[in-house]
């Protein structure tokens, strides 16, 4: 596997290096640098980038990255890209700070640098594209449950650990918008510690303590899978809907069994598409990345930057029986 990956990088790099003169000079070359090659999530992002390239017409996507998720590997790759004088680099970084010097050198050479998915410190990029934002996620998790409960009902939260920051922020954001979902009552919050067995036990406990429970919301990938299994084992498929944040490959079984009607997570295709669009706008259309700026990104609307030059792409993407088969092999 690793040999194949290494070969793939070498070929990609060699191709990119030696093939340069073959490109038409007017082609805009945007490099999509990922955490590591061979990860389904990033392969899907590349698919989105290709889509954006096709839409823009004169764009060449260079999809590259190291063979393992290290900052050192990404620095090498980025150095090679600087030498090739690409027009823009869009990177999902393995380290917030380690990439800053090399990316600053790229910017000094006039290369547009943005980060997406996993960010770089503000000094090392012009803007950062977040897949989503905490308020959007907080709203989405309750909406997922409420959409299947037109008459209201009881829902419970299954989180990771009591101290996990992102979970707590999402649940807080969810509580802020509860007013928009009348009739939905959050009856309990339990913690599965991101362990399959504890999450399973907590989910079983919820169904016992609240016999009328309608949905379990688990904004954690371990918890949502374990809760779905607990619902199946308790014979409550159809009564209790498990939803929250999960990965399609991990949740395919739960969608198939009916334990989960739908769940959400960012869509890597949209993410690659938006990153490419943003890189193109910055590098070709003279758009300035500054706080408050609104930058168009094709079919995904516009990105509004905050004081750190960061922006959120969109609501998390909803996966259900209709699209799970397309995504379960991707990530």
């Amino acid at each position, binding site marked *: *596997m690793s040999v194949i990956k290494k070969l793939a990088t070498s070929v990609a790099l060699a191709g990119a290096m030696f093939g340069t003169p073959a490109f038409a000079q007017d082609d805009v070359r945007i490099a999509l640098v990922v955490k590591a090659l061979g990860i389904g999530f990033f392969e899907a992002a590349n698919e989105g980038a290709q889509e954006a390239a096709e839409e823009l017409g004169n764009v060449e996507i260079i999809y590259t990255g190291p063979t393992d998720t290290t900052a050192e590997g990404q620095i090498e790759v980025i150095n090679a890209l600087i030498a090739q004088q690409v027009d823009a680099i869009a990177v999902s970084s393995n380290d917030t700070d380690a990439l800053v010097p090399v990316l600053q050198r790229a910017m000094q050479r006039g290369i547009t640098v943005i980060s997406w998915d996993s960010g770089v410190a503000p000094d090392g990029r012009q803007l950062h594209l977040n897949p989503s934002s905490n308020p959007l996620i907080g709203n989405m998790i309750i909406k997922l449950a409420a959409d299947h409960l037109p008459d209201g009902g009881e829902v419970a939260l299954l989180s990771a650990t*009591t101290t996990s920051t992102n979970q707590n922020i999402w649940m807080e954001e969810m509580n802020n918008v509860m007013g928009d979902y009348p009739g939905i009552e959050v009856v*309990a919050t*339990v*913690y599965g510690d*991101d*362990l*399959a*067995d*504890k999450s*399973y*036990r*907590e989910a*079983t*406990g*919820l169904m*016992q*303590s609240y016999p009328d429970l309608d949905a379990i919301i688990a904004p954690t990938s371990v918890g949502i*899978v*374990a809760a779905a*299994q607990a619902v199946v*084992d308790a014979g409550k498929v159809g009564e209790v809907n498990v939803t929250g944040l999960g990965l399609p*490959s*991990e*949740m*395919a*079984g*739960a969608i*198939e069994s009916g334990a989960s009607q739908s769940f959400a997570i960012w869509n890597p295709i949209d993410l690659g598409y938006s990153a490419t669009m943003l890189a193109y706008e910055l590098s070709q259309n003279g758009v300035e990345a500054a706080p408050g700026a609104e930058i168009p990104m094709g079919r995904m609307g516009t990105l509004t930057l905050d004081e750190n030059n960061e922006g959120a792409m969109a609501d998390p993407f909803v996966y259900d029986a209709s699209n799970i088969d397309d995504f*379960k092999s991707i990530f």
Partner: protein
Amino acid sequence: MMRFIPVREAILGSAILILLVLVASRFSGFVAPSNLANVFNDTAPLIILALGQMVVILTRCIDLSVAANLALTGMAAAMINVAMPGLPIPVIIAIAVLMGAFMGAINGVLVWKLSIPPIVVTLGTMTIFRGIIFLISDGKWVNSHEMSAAFTGFPRTVFLGLPVLSWIAIFTVIVFGIMMARTQFGRSIFAVGGNPHAAVYTGINVGKTQFWAFVVAGALAGLTGYLWVARYAVAYVDIAGGFELEVVAACVIGGISIAGGIGSVGGAVLGAIFLGVVKNALPVVNISPFWQLAISGSAILIAVAFNARSGRAKGRIILKSAEATQ
């Protein structure tokens, strides 16, 4: 002196009953027979692992790698199932047990032949096993839709009113009950832990006995690895993270002396059930999650305090009871 051990088990047994009454007073559904069966089924992996750990602790060793062993065999079993969905489940179980036993044997050889302290050996192998899972799986999960129906269905199959998982635990308890009381291996484990010097004079090879104790614990961890992955229908690097401590806790609560030589199958089983009841009860009695860890921890401390008080004059007692049984 033979009354001594049953007394301790009686205390633990009544502690479990009091706990059940307390829980029932807040949530009556908990003591319904069907729910108690569920609790037992949920505790089955802990019971199996606690028995393996008991054997190791009795020989004055400790095995911290059981959870990592479980996770590695579980991942291997899941990957074999994905690669060859047609492979019958008994074959997968046999592979899991052998694989677990092999990993236990690695621990055993290091303790036996190189005389490295067991806590160091198993801390090392624990990390190595977790690392290997990452290597073979590439960090990816094996998910429920990739596993065959037979693979995930086997531990759930109901046989005479109980799932197969529960029956495997019951069967293991019976086998261990006979092994510890009636076989030469079982008695030499007590002898080695009770007084290694005396054991040598009676012709018992201390290192070899410890080696086999690790193999037994490893084999049980391997068996549990398959059962775990099939039950939760997911395999990834971190499954059963930190579970080794729960297994040791079950043994300690069950009155198995960390210093070796003292303990019983009944104690280990009751210790596991006690923890199982606590773990299953806490989610339904509406106790703040912030308190749950403190409550589990206090239970362990109280149990250890009990055992420390009754741990006087060990060694001698065990050798006498060993004589008496033979």
